[in-house]
């Protein structure tokens, strides 16, 4: 019988190329198993073979994701494997994201089962747990020994198309997928049990946890405002005259970044409002009512704030889906970070 073929993905560190200094390495291909793959090879036994190990530096993957992905896929494809394993990444964040990204890409392109492993707090977990089976590992490579049996069992089941049981049984990270089963007691009886316990003050476990409301904990305060660069953002629909980027007056699908360099105030000759949600007359007359440039310049001059970013970011809030708004935010924070912005004043109408 032919052996099942596995391709394994690891990073610079686990390939023995080195740590941070080797993180820029480009994708490489090695025949057979290496590094942590040796433990997998031993566990999977004679019916399986790690035919190749593909390696990529974490920084290279992070910075040139698309190129790295394409190169790696080419390498993997020609082995025609039945299973792809990435990592485990343990608590290495960039490595975790790379493992998750590669698993998704391989699954989509090659249509074969994929598997990775991470420590619960690895940022890759939140990004990929709904899409992938991620074996739960300890936070360092010392956890390899414990992870291997789970990777083996799940990997075998995947290749053979057998049912993968619940996360606590199989040792993977809970994916948040609701799956039916038959309980030994009917629902009403379980309900009464829970209520009696709850009334006694005993701990009870819910069968369906309420969604966690997506909250971001507040950042620590700005220590010294006079040393910080402040940026202004608005959902109040203030744009340069003529609305050059055609931002919609409601249900916006884009945002704009516009210069305020050398300006002391928002002049109605330069800016207009496109907001669809309110009476525009006052703001048309004085855009500072939404983007308080005049006051901010005063504060900058007086040294109350260190510096004002030389642009403002704008869109319209009315009718704009939370999904789009989230997307805008994810996009423009990169710029804010690059520009060293240390505080943001966001105005909404």
């Amino acid at each position, binding site marked *: 019988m032919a052996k099942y073929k596995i391709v394994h993905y690891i990073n610079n560190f686990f390939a023995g190329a080195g740590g941070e200094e080797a993180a820029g390495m480009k994708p490489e291909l090695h025949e057979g198993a290496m590094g942590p793959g040796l433990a997998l090879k031993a566990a999977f036994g004679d019916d399986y073979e790690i035919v190749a190990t593909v390696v990529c530096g974490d920084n290279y993957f992070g910075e040139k994701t698309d190129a790295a992905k394409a190169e790696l896929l080419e390498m993997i494809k020609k082995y025609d494997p039945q299973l792809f394993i990435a990592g485990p990444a343990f608590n290495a964040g960039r490595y975790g994201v790379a493992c998750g990204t590669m698993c998704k890409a391989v699954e989509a392109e090659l249509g074969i089962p994929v598997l990775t492993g991470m420590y619960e707090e690895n940022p890759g977990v939140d990004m990929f747990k709904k899409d992938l089976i991620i074996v739960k590992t300890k936070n360092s490579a010392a956890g390899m020994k414990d992870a291997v049996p789970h990777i083996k069992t799940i990997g075998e089941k995947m290749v053979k198309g057998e049912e993968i049981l619940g996360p606590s049984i199989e040792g993977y990270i809970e994916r948040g*997928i609701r799956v*039916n089963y038959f309980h030994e007691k009917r629902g009403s009886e379980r309900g*009464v049990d829970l209520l009696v316990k709850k009334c006694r003050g005993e701990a009870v476990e819910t069968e369906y946890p309420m969604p966690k409301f997506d909250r971001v904990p507040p950042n620590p305060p700005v220590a010294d405002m006079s040393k910080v660069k402040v940026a202004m953002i608005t959902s109040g629909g203030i744009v340069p005259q003529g609305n050059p980027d055609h931002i919609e007056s409601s249900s916006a699908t884009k945002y704009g970044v516009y210069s305020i360099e050398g300006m002391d105030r928002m002049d109605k000759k330069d800016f207009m409002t496109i907001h669809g949600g309110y009476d525009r007359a006052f703001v048309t007359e004085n855009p500072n009512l939404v983007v308080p440039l005049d006051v901010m310049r005063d504060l900058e001059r007086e040294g109350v704030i260190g510096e004002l970013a030389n642009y403002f970011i704008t869109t319209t809030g009315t009718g704009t889906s939370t999904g789009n708004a989230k997307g805008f935010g994810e996009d423009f924070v990169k710029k804010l970070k690059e520009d060293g912005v240390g505080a943001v004043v966001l105005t909404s109408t």
Partner: protein
Amino acid sequence: MKLELGKIYIHDVQFADKTYVENGTLFVCKEEIEKLVLEDDRLISARVELARPGESVRIAPVKDVIEPRVKVDGPGAIFPGVINKVKQVGEGRTHALVGSTVITCGRIVGFQEGVIDMSGPTAKYTPFSETYNVCVVIEPKEGLETHDYEAAGRMAGLKVATYVGEAGRNVEPDEIVTYETKPLLEQIAQYPDLPKIGYVHMLQSQGLLHDTFYYGVDAKKFIPTLMYPTEIMDGAIVSGNCVAPCDKVTTYHHLNNPVIEDLYKRHGKDLNFIGVILTNENVFLADKERCSDMVAKLAQFIGLDGLLITEEGYGNPDTDLMMNCKKVTQAGTKVVIITDEFPGRDGKSQSLADAVPEADTMVSCGQGNIIVHFPAMDHVIGTLDFVETMIGGYEGCIKADGSFDAELQIIIASTIANGFNKLAARTY
């Protein structure tokens, strides 16, 4: 209020010249049932068919399921305010033909009614694959208005069930179960050391095909009220809805409410079952605020320590469910919710349309979005013409041999949100 429920166990159903029960077999007279149904001139045809557990039979589209019962002693009669005169029920003695049902089926509107399979892999999801079913397939006269047809179909089922139930009047029951709830102060005094427990029963009340009736009163027009648990066993509540089949509370499920049954089982042991608060699930947000305020008020008024809440339906009712839970909790009563789930095809989305942090103790009756396969059956009672358009079905899902794939929500009472079944969901 004390009710003796005499259970007559039915192990088979057969056609005969008259309707009667003998040695656990229910004999029904087809002609008399058809005649009874056709007394309503809104209906032009009624066909009676029988379905037994294990048969290769599929029933669709199902409108309501009703257990035949008859009141043999005490005030009032079965289905008060609907079939019989308005009169307080819940006291005396009632006989039930346990293990048999009357099922109405037929097309009401171009969507929504569900499926019952008497055998095969999907049979396990519905309790009615284990009962002996007298199915009445109805057809309306041409051009009948939807509201009228809904009413005619609802009445047909209740009339037939009442008629069949009469067969149990003079039969000695196999088992008699006594349920008793005393007036509030006496009930509290009976078990002073046990937690005082209630049940908030939310009735579907959004409009056409979404209604429920209490003593004939449209539930959207009442305000929350207290009910002795035994009233429901005499048919004080009847279903007038066919929302998503999977979480439809059929009239059968009202008569056999599992929460009430299980609370009675523990009554006097580790809890003191005080009573039921009935409330509704209206479309109007002001009604929701008002009724949930009143539910919390009643719970506090009668001094409950804890209560269970069940809902019927998805979406709009989730908001009532959460408002009730939140306000009752804030009024100082502990809450457990029983619900079903709709997390989408991939099981990854939020299961309910609303959520509050107070809903921290929930029982899951399973999720209705998974796809299940329905193999072909030898015989179909009703029609499969509408499967594609029924809830949970999708275009092209039905194959030439009559087999099809559909979401679990197409099966009657498969994820019923009052805990009648053992189906549950957990997180993978």
